[in-house]
């Protein structure tokens, strides 16, 4: 891992859909998958980068001189970037942007600052049965720092959940298991080809890791994103159920796709538009899992 520190693109307090109770969710930057429906496109790259909201840019030029590599210029009343020059992700242009048209995604935090931020809401975790959730991106990509952070949280009696894509070497899991109370584990598409097409990787490792996690008696909530025309079919449900025969999980969360990310600050046109699956299908899916004895919840 290039960064020894924690590279974080968002910290969400009062997070109520990422595990039990009131939580703080730490979003790690960097992801091995490139899901076509991804809600957090800024989570992909493992380096800080600038997000722009072009409609906010008034072309005032406040940012131009701040750029140490002279990447910025004005064209047609808007700030543009010279493609050939690499952005260092220093964030200076975002600092001086008056109109909130530029934002830095990805900030390095040292361990103790993060522990402080997480601990500051401990009273709410205690009251609600909440805690901290490490999400991303893929938090396990930063296993060196994550391991230390999770360990500290555990020492402070904070419930730790890890929200993972599963696409990392299993040894990363082995290192985090002693410090994690719960894994939120995504199974996106069971069909291998389709998985590769829409996420950029095969799902072999993801499924293997889930099985191993189960063997290690880790507590797992399986999270199943549902996207219209992609995995909203019984075949997908059947394959998940088949997979579940060989593993132990605590509950299933069905996460219907929504298009909130459209309109979010973007880096590129990475986000494709997908449709939200019908309530009818979601209810059907819930019932199928429930009929098979799984506690199944719609939403986080």
């Amino acid at each position, binding site marked *: 891992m290039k960064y020894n520190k924690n590279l974080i693109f968002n910290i969400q307090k009062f997070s*109520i859909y990422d595990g039990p109770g*009131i939580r703080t969710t730490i979003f790690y930057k960097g992801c091995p998958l490139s899901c076509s429906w991804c809600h957090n496109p800024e989570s992909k790259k493992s380096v800080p980068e600038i997000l722009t909201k072009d409609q906010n840019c008034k072309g005032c030029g*406040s940012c131009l001189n701040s750029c140490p590599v002279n990447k910025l210029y004005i064209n047609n009343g808007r700030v543009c970037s010279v493609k050939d020059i690499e952005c260092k992700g220093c964030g200076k242009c975002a600092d*001086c942007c008056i109109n909130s048209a530029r934002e830095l995604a990805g900030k390095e935090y040292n361990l103790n600052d993060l522990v402080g931020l997480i601990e500051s809401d401990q009273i709410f975790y205690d009251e609600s049965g909440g805690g901290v959730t490490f999400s991303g991106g893929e938090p396990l990509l930063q296993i060196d720092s994550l391991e230390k952070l999770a360990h500290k949280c555990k020492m402070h009696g904070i419930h730790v959940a890890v929200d993972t894509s599963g696409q990392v070497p299993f040894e990363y899991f082995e290192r985090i298991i002693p410090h994690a109370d719960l894994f939120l584990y995504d199974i996106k598409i069971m069909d291998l080809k389709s998985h590769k097409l829409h996420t950029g990787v095969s799902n072999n490792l993801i499924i293997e890791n889930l099985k191993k996690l189960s063997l290690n008696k880790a507590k797992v909530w399986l999270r199943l994103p549902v996207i219209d025309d992609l995995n909203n079919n019984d075949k997908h449900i059947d394959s998940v159920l088949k997979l579940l025969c060989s593993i132990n999980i605590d509950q299933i969360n069905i996460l219907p796709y929504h298009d909130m990310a459209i309109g979010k600050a973007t880096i590129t046109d990475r986000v494709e538009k997908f449709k939200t699956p019908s309530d009818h299908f979601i209810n059907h899916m819930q019932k199928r899992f429930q009929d098979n004895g799984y506690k199944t919840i719609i939403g986080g």
Partner: protein
Amino acid sequence: MERGFTKRTQKLRNESVSTKPNISMERSILITEAYKKYEGTVDIPILRALTFRHLMENKKLHISSGDLIVGEKGPSPLSVPTYPELCCHTLDDLDVMNNRERIGFEVVKDDLKIQEEIIIPFWEKRSIRSKIFEHVSDEWKDCYHAGIFTEFMEQRSPGHTVADGKIYEKGFSDFIADIDNEIVSIDYKNDRRALDRKVQLNAMRITCEAIISYGKRYYELAISMANNEKNPERKEELLKIAENCKTVPANKPKSYWQAVQMYWFIHIGVTSELNNWDAYSPGRLDQHLIPFYNQDTESGEIGRGKARELLECLWIKFNNQPAPPKVGITLKESATYTDFANINTGGIKKDGSNGVNEVSYLILETMDEMKLLQPSSNVQISKKTPNNFLRKALEVSRKGWGQPAFYNTDVIVQELILAGKEIRDARQGGASGCVETGAFGKEAYILTGYFNLPKILEITLNNGFDDYSSRQIGLKTGEVTDFKSYEEILSAYEKQLKHFIDIKIIGNNIIERIYGKQMPAPFLSVMTDDCIKRGMDYNEGGARYNTSYLQGVGIGTITDCLTSIKYNVFDEKKITMEELISAINSNFEGHENIYNLVKHKTPKYGNDDDYADNIMKSVFDMYHRLVTNRPNMKGGTYRINMLPTTCHIYFGSVMKASVNGRLSGKPLPDGISPEKGADVNGPTSVIKSASKMDHINTGGTLLNQKFSPSIVEGEKGINNLASLVKSYFALDGHHIQFNIIDKKVLMEAQKNPDDYNDLIVRVAGYSDHFNNLEKALQDEIIERTDQKFN
């Protein structure tokens, strides 16, 4: 949808919400008659008592068809008396009331004539309002008109007092016996107050007789209505009402129904005697009613349903009494029909044990079903409160219109003990009005005025000169650009703050004495321990505890302003003081960079960020230090609380742009809430920031949180809300309440008010119809940070 547990309460509620408030001259005429008859011939306390008696013996009685509880302040529901001995309205005032778009009162032509020919000639120079403006200094007036502070007592009398349990153990003939006992034991040989004592006690005695007469008159009316009633069921009810009025208020109540009637007679008595702020409240109603409830449900006298219907009848009675009409700045600070009767449910008992009982749940059901602006209803939550009660209260609160509010019993008790109350009195205390703490039945805790904390910084930065009123109202503490450090600015601010607090308190001292001498309240004195024992009036300091409050407004803004100066000018040196001042002087026009810096890139209160929150603490401590424990004129002391009613709109309107990016004329945040849009880390961070304030050193703070409905859906939603409340209370927060509504709905309601007549929102320490709020206040509520999940 018809609201009401029975057809009867549906009908009564419907009448209450559909009648337009109107002005009644009845009281003005009656008190003028009494003054013309007695003034000059008797001592002032006796004059006030005889006036009260004249009123209670002659005011029109009213029993609506279906009424189970009787008594109205005016001649009929929603008919509002005026109090010319306090504030003698001009014809213009009445015209404004009749025609203003919001919080209007119908005034009929004939009444204008009465006002012009009878009321104004007699009261114009006699009114307390005119005496106040005669006696206070010019500098007080300058500050008042500049919007530095408001004055609660210029149109309404001191109040903020709540009933305790004695009225369920004693009737007024028993109070007369108590008074007579004191009269015979007056020590004329040694006590220099002996004569005063006699006069005060005699006055109190007359008011007891007056309320007994009032009850007797209702007894007679009910009997005569029963005699003419054809419907046997109603006839029986009227006879029952007659029986109730034969018992109370002369004697202690014998049944649940009579207990409710007893309180209501007293409510009418207190609020007819004077128009004291925050009307009157039954306090710990659930604890007072439970013995009667248990007795009557066990004997089969009433069932749970009847008990609930009677509570609904009481609720409707509260709603039948809009706040006395206000004008001028007093209207701006409290622009609402709500008169702030605030019922405390739950909490703990005298012995410190859990106070929740079956009537507590009945009260929750009643407020839920009635959904009325009045009375304000809250729940007190202690660490002993069953989770079930908290969750039931949250289920009502989740419906989004702001009731019940949540108060922290354990903190209230500590606040009261810190202010010198005995533990038993503290445990039976609570919050009234919006959030103000007091020992029920034993304390006069007077709110004296709102105090504009951020405006004083504006004046400090302008070397004592106020641009709004174009006057040098502050001290010359130096040109701000000459200050070398943040500490120098803070120290100048402290000097100015002290200067204005001094002016306010000097004014208060004068006003307190005007009331003490000219406007005793003998009936309220009977209700408040230890006025009888001391032979001293409520307005003279007869209560066991006497507290004067000064309510700080805009802590979020003043914090962010000082933070902006410290961070941007001194610590980070991003801009100079000159640049900052020049930006606010032009409302940030042409200074977009500075606006962006102070608005978006500066630490802010409400984010659990110690940089800003420590500044909040330092300003809070300063305000606390400069006010708390100063003596008032009643033998008590000053304390602070942090609430605004609607004053944050008015205070914002008299200010130019602030150095935190708040634009000219824009409202201040309500209560201890962060500045609009400043809190970006969600509700847990707001709660953390707010709890860094030392709530126990106040007499109440107010925190509003707005949520999107989706956040609080389902079982999980209740869990989350319960956790927020319990966490805030574990951190010693005083009060929290919720608006749970979509911003879109509010915006839609603003566009099409007629479609949203039923929309009620939480404003500050009370709820109001969205349509009753002026546009600036509507906008302010729309702009409050929506706590949602991203």
